[in-house]
């Protein structure tokens, strides 16, 4: 049986597979890259070739232009491809549209690099699929026992209650442009909200793409247009990237009420530091319970923990008799979401 570290190991560029000579989610340009999902810290432009799901390739093209890589190859979920004798299979990760775990197998050893993932339901992407493996590589963004994400539907309920209670104020919801924004809008629709949702310019192309692949988002309008009369009315919901909510951009709206949809909002002081008045605990990452349940469920002989609070999850594994070690890969934004 091949030693796991001979199959995958961390290098400054990212997670590297020596026998297959490829990287998973490299943070610098490399010859051959496998990409788990379209978030900017995992999917970078400038690689020689990229293997990823259709949606991830499309999203990279939307963000970086059609020529984001020398060559691209679509990975169909569940289908195995061979790269220099290494068997590679993509499985859904439940993080955002197109997100995948990547199973890498050679010499009788299988490692699953799960990228970012979550286990709670999300109407905008396929659900996480557990894959038996020898080594499970898990993220650790919210790997502290204090992170317990609320039920996303209930959080959307808080937003709608606030909109009713403060009809004179524009609710500006900070949400990451890829995935979170569309999930928030889809959840609003699921809760019966049929008004036009106003979106920041950075969301327009991605929302249209989601619609194109069959994720219905209902009536949307750009939040900022030059003509008169098209501005969001008081009491509207505006969805924007987090950075825009406390920026000058948000001050054009009627008495803006700053909301933020993120797992970090579980911590009061995080909300306070950002000047958020209405925290919405909605996350596209697994919370502590999901992380520990998933590790148990995968039953891997060994767990490697990366980007986030590695030490806490490694500690939990030790307490539960599971071999674990932190995998230090630089370059991921462990506090961004």
């Amino acid at each position, binding site marked *: 049986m091949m030693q796991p570290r001979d199959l995958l190991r961390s290098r400054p560029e990212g997670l590297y597979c020596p026998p297959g000579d490829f990287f998973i989610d490299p943070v610098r340009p490399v010859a051959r890259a496998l990409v788990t999902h379209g978030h900017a810290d995992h999917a970078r432009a400038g690689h020689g070739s990229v293997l990823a799901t259709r949606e991830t390739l499309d999203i990279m093209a939307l963000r970086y232009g059609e020529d984001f890589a020398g060559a691209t190859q679509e990975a169909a979920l569940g289908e195995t491809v061979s790269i220099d004798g290494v068997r590679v299979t993509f499985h859904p990760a439940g993080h955002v549209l197109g997100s995948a775990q990547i199973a890498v197998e050679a010499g009788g050893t299988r490692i699953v690099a799960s990228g970012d993932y979550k286990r709670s339901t999300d109407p905008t992407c396929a659900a996480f699929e557990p894959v038996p493996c020898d080594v499970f590589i898990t993220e650790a963004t919210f790997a*502290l026992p*204090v992170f317990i994400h609320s039920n996303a539907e209930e959080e959307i309920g808080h937003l709608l209650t606030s909109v009713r209670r403060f009809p004179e104020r524009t609710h500006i919801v900070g949400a990451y442009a890829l995935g979170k924004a569309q999930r928030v809008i889809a959840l609003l629709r699921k809760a019966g909200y049929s008004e036009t949702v106003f979106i920041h310019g950075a969301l327009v192309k991605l929302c249209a793409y989601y619609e194109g692949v069959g994720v219905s988002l209902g009536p949307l309008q750009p939040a900022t247009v030059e003509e008169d009369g098209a501005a969001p009315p008081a009491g509207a919901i505006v969805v924007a990237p987090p950075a825009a909510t406390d920026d000058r951009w948000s001050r054009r709206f009627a008495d803006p009420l700053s909301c933020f949809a993120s797992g970090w909002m579980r*911590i*009061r*002081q995080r909300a306070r*530091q950002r000047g958020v008045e*209405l925290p919405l605990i909605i996350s596209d990452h697994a919370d502590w319970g999901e992380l520990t349940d998933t590790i148990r469920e995968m039953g891997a002989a060994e767990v490697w923990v990366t980007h986030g*609070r590695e030490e*806490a999850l490694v500690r*939990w594994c030790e307490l539960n008799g599971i071999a674990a070690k932190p995998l230090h890969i630089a370059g991921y934004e462990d506090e961004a979401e």
Partner: protein
Amino acid sequence: MERFAELLDRLVLTPARNGKLRLLTDYFATVPDPDRGYGLAALTGGLDFPAVKPAMLRTLTTERVDPVLFAYSYDYVGDLAETVSLIWPADGGTEAPALSHVVERLSHASRSDAPAVMAKLLDQLSPSGRFAAIKLATGGLRVGVSARLTKQALAEFGGVEIQEIEELWHGLTAPYSDLFAWLEGKGPKPENAAQAPFRPVMLAHPAAEADFSALDPEAYAAEWKWDGIRVQAVAEGGIRRLYSRTGDDISGAFPDLVEAMDFDAALDGELLVGDPRSTTGTFSDLQQRLNRKTVSRAMLADYPVFMRCYDLLLLGERDVRALPYAERRPQLAAFLAELPDDRFDLSPEIAFTSWQELDDKRCHPPHPVIEGVMLKRRDSPYLPGRPKGPWFKWKRDPFTVDAVLMYAQRGHGKRSSFYSDYTFGVWSGPAEDPVLVPVGKAYFGFTDEELRQIDKYVRDNTVERFGPVRAVRADLGHGLVLEIAFEGLNRSTRHKSGIAMRFPRISRLRWDKPAHEADRIETLEAMLPAG
């Protein structure tokens, strides 16, 4: 309980004063008795559950959660109550107890059964409810609402003046049903049942807000502003109470002064350590006596307190607050002449004929425990609160020194995850090869934006880590110079530098100043009081 928990959550995140007032008045209007009364008591610091201590909560939690995971979590969250409320392994029951039941259970808990009572409560509540219960049990809600703001909300709720509420306050007890009945027009105004009640104190505006060219020096009396704590001594009908300026009863900590209050009057003055006939101690001497529940015999002997009196509010049965200062002052002097002179004296007036002359005296005070001068218009009555015009405080300018940032520690609360507590030093040793010696620690005086800049600087220039503390690169050629403002210096045997700074804060970031141009220890030593 959940309604109270929601109120706390919303108060924490509502920045505007008017928004907080609206949340509070809504709470008083929509929550029934007795819960709203206990909520009011919690917000005004009127509940005390001595059996519950933060250390106990920590123990309860680490009996249920791995201590290492708890430590990681606490370090990240930066607030014990919030950490415990989130990490506590229970989903909360379906029947969450009402606030009044929580208060009842906590108040009946003895030191021995408090842990079990607390654990059961935490099991029954949601994370948000747990947070509120912990804040309630350990005191100090810290939700950005002062007792005064809460009373302001009560006044708005009932359409009365806040002074009416403050005067009544000390005769009332939780759950304040009679107060709410009056405020809702359903009952009579409660009688002031407290004996020897607190009278709201009169406060001064900073002189910086005064236009001296428009003020006539002859219309004002001046006296020294002593660096102690402002107190009100009230004795009526055999009841004696010493109050802080916010109306907290602090009699228990100062039995030596209370024993000497053998009179019928209400006095306003400064609490100081020493003997008024010979010595006035520094604020750090006074600190030995503050925030103590019991006082040892040795403490009473080594740090006796006395009151330097500023004003007279009540003389026998007579309320003299409406009289002008010029008439109150001689009555105060005559009254004090009869009191024991080791415990009471009269704050002396300063003679002056022009603002320039007073400024000179302010800059060269005759005693080190003076922190400025007070101006009082001779025709002004004693008014509650901070009326504009009759009183001004004209503080001595703060001292400043240029120091170099040496260590930074992660903050708590609002600043958790930011490096916001700074230890700074000045140069010491030979001029050609100096070393930095720490002289103090400051954690405010900068804006949020400056905090972000310093935080980034700390992260980019870390040379060593010790838990939550980072050592920051600081040498002759490299370092961040901080201009530190402070109120004074004391000799200290606990600090390596031999110096303790009083009230240090960061007054400016000197990005422009090279580290080697920061001040030397000799500059500070020259500022030390003689002795």
